[in-house]
């Protein structure tokens, strides 16, 4: 059978890749995608622990579903914001959107 640690390492890898993307990509949409990656890693983690921890208890899946919902709304709102920013300033580069400073 598949050891738990493999799953954990995989999710860790996914998460770190997503983190790298979030930190380094310039395009806001790309950042959003990376965030989705991280979220997926989290969900996968939840399910793994549910499966290996106590599959009789459904909580793990419920949590995963809630995270799905959050991810969906996050994507929708985030992209809406990106679009409106793009409309107003015609850029989606994260480090050009830096008006919020001294």
């Amino acid at each position, binding site marked *: 059978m598949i050891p738990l640690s493999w799953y954990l390492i995989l999710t860790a890898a996914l998460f770190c890749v997503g*983190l790298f993307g979030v930190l380094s990509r310039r395009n806001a949409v*790309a950042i959003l995608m990376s965030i989705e990656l991280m979220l997926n890693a989290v969900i996968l983690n939840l399910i793994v622990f*549910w499966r290996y921890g106590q599959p009789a208890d459904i909580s793990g899946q419920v949590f995963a*579903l809630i995270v799905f919902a959050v991810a969906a709304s996050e994507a929708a709102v985030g992209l809406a914001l990106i679009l409106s920013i793009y409309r107003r300033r015609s850029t989606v580069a994260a480090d050009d959107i830096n008006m919020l400073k001294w």
Partner: protein
Amino acid sequence: MTAMQAIFLLLGLITFLSAVMVVVSPQLIHAGLWLVLTLAGVAGLFVLLEAPFLAVVQVVIYIGAIAILIIFAIMLTRRMLREDGRQYNNLWAGAVTVSLILFAVLTFLVLQEPSLAAGSEPLQAETSVLLQDLGRSMVDVDRFIIPFEVASILLLAALIGAIYVARPMMASEEGDREE
């Protein structure tokens, strides 16, 4: 090395590599498609974990909705940042280090934690029963009805907010995604 492990390694590899491609591919559209592949891989892992419901939900919501939404956004904003443009900001080195360190730490923790080490078996569970239980627990007053309702409110808020923020163009598009 049982067959399951083989399948797992295959899926895991696909997932991981496509995830990497998501963050490195210069073409945003490709990144989006790689993202789809990643999500599909995760869905496969769900199947492997005997959570078919979540697998399907993953496909419906992530591939069917979020990914397509993202690709839409890319198309709409694709005049910017073609492959010729810089894809990374000047923090990328720091980002790499941080990510690698984090990964190393996590892996280290996982490996030196005995209870998580190799050989731990998944427990048996009757998934079809679980699915019903999942459905009931969502509307069970003393279980998860509150998170459930909160999530629904959140979705509604996101729907309205998205429509409002991006009203002049594609007002309905953002709206659709949260069904």
